């Protein structure tokens, strides 16, 4: 453990207003939920801030509530709770799959969906699923609350639309109408608790062999999780054929921006992305 303990402070917020008051008092308090990312930096002596307010047990952030049109997931709901939630299993299986891919069982017991969003890793496994499901984020502060489409939240590498006095409180998922064909696959170095080389998520509505509507989103192939709008436009209204799949591979290869890094190469990521796209489109038939 490489941090100097006396330099750091941690307060456990008893309720949401107390947490928001600390975040807005100008003393540079930062929120921490399960700590599965923050504590790694702390242990390595690389945590860039000194004052943490624990929001791990706030009941306001820990519920999944269901209304006729949407499901609201509290930002503090753990990955374990997400996997066990029957509504999420039935209607948003890609979120449950992503939760099962993120870290180990112990990490899933502490790690939260909200934490995965504000940690803002381009390799975060839950974020492509949020793009596919058109998620909306609710941010709260002492000034009130505001909602923003998740697709507009991450604006660049580790850059996001949140003020330092705000907390991510809720992730809203509109409930799907009609039957979706859903697909997600993660490619990493090992099967358990690997960080993704490519994470591919998609959902389509079919009218026999015609793609009526389609959403495709990827992790680890751009500075932020990427929704593939150009590819979606190319595919919508088309019958799934071998020629369409071949064309789609060329389109997605141009739309993603993978890099060479410690976990993989740009070339490998591009090839795997194209292969996952072929697999998904073939399964639509």
């Amino acid at each position, binding site marked *: *453990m490489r941090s100097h303990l006396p330099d750091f402070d941690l307060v456990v917020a008893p309720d949401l207003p107390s947490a928001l008051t600390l975040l807005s008092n100008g003393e540079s308090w930062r929120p921490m939920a399960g700590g*599965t990312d923050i*504590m790694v930096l*702390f*242990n390595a002596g690389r945590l860039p801030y000194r004052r943490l307010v*624990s929001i791990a047990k706030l009941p306001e952030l820990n519920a999944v509530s269901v209304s006729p049109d949407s499901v609201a997931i509290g930002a503090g709901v753990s990955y374990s709770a997400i996997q066990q939630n029957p509504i999420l299993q039935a209607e948003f299986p890609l979120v449950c799959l992503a939760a099962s891919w993120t*870290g*180990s*069982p112990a990490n899933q017991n502490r790690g939260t969906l909200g934490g995965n969003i504000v940690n803002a890793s381009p390799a975060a496994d839950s974020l492509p699923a949020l793009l596919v499901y058109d998620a909306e984020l609710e941010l709260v502060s002492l000034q009130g609350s505001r909602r923003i489409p998740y697709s507009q939240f991450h604006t660049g590498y580790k850059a996001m639309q949140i003020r330092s006095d705000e907390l991510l409180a809720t992730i809203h998922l509109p409930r799907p109408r009609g039957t979706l064909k859903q697909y997600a696959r993660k490619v990493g170095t090992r099967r*358990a608790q690997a960080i993704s080389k490519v994470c591919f998520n998609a959902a389509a509505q079919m009218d026999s062999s015609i793609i009526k509507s389609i959403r495709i989103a990827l992790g680890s192939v751009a500075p932020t999780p990427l929704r593939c709008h150009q590819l979606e436009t190319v595919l919508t209204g088309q019958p799934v054929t071998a020629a369409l799949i071949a064309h789609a591979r060329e389109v997605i290869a141009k739309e993603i921006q993978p890099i060479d890094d410690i976990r993989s190469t740009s070339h490998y990521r591009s090839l795997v992305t194209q292969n996952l796209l072929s697999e998904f489109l073939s399964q639509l038939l």
Partner: protein
Amino acid sequence: MAETKVTFSVNGKPQSVTVPPMKRLLDVIREDLHLTGTKEGCGEGECGACSVLLDGQLVNSCLLPAKQADGSSIQTIEGTAFEQIQRAFAEAGAAQCGICTPGMILASHALLQRIPHPTRDQIRAGLAGNICRCTGYQKILDAVELVSQRSK
């Protein structure tokens, strides 16, 4: 920063310590409570050597400030709930150097509480966050199967 008082139960015994607010549960358990069965491996939540149960849930104690466990019930390898699993590990030859063993046993316990008779794949998934560099895992999986068979 001022030290803070943290109160919780460890293996059923009430404990109270006064520590720096960000002191890790792992270090409180080992240094303040002198329960050295819980190990530090990687210190970044990858290896599971520091596994404990926090209110019955498996967690990595290296990623948890003790303050966040205030008011909780904690079980470590020194607790009494793990004897059957410990015996099975010994019989199956599932321990070699022993550093991963406490974490493996706690993860096995958490798995068996959830799924009393897991398949081999479910055991692998349950122990996915615990890394062993000696035995090659097969004997560890055998040990968990042994516990499952005996509880039929």
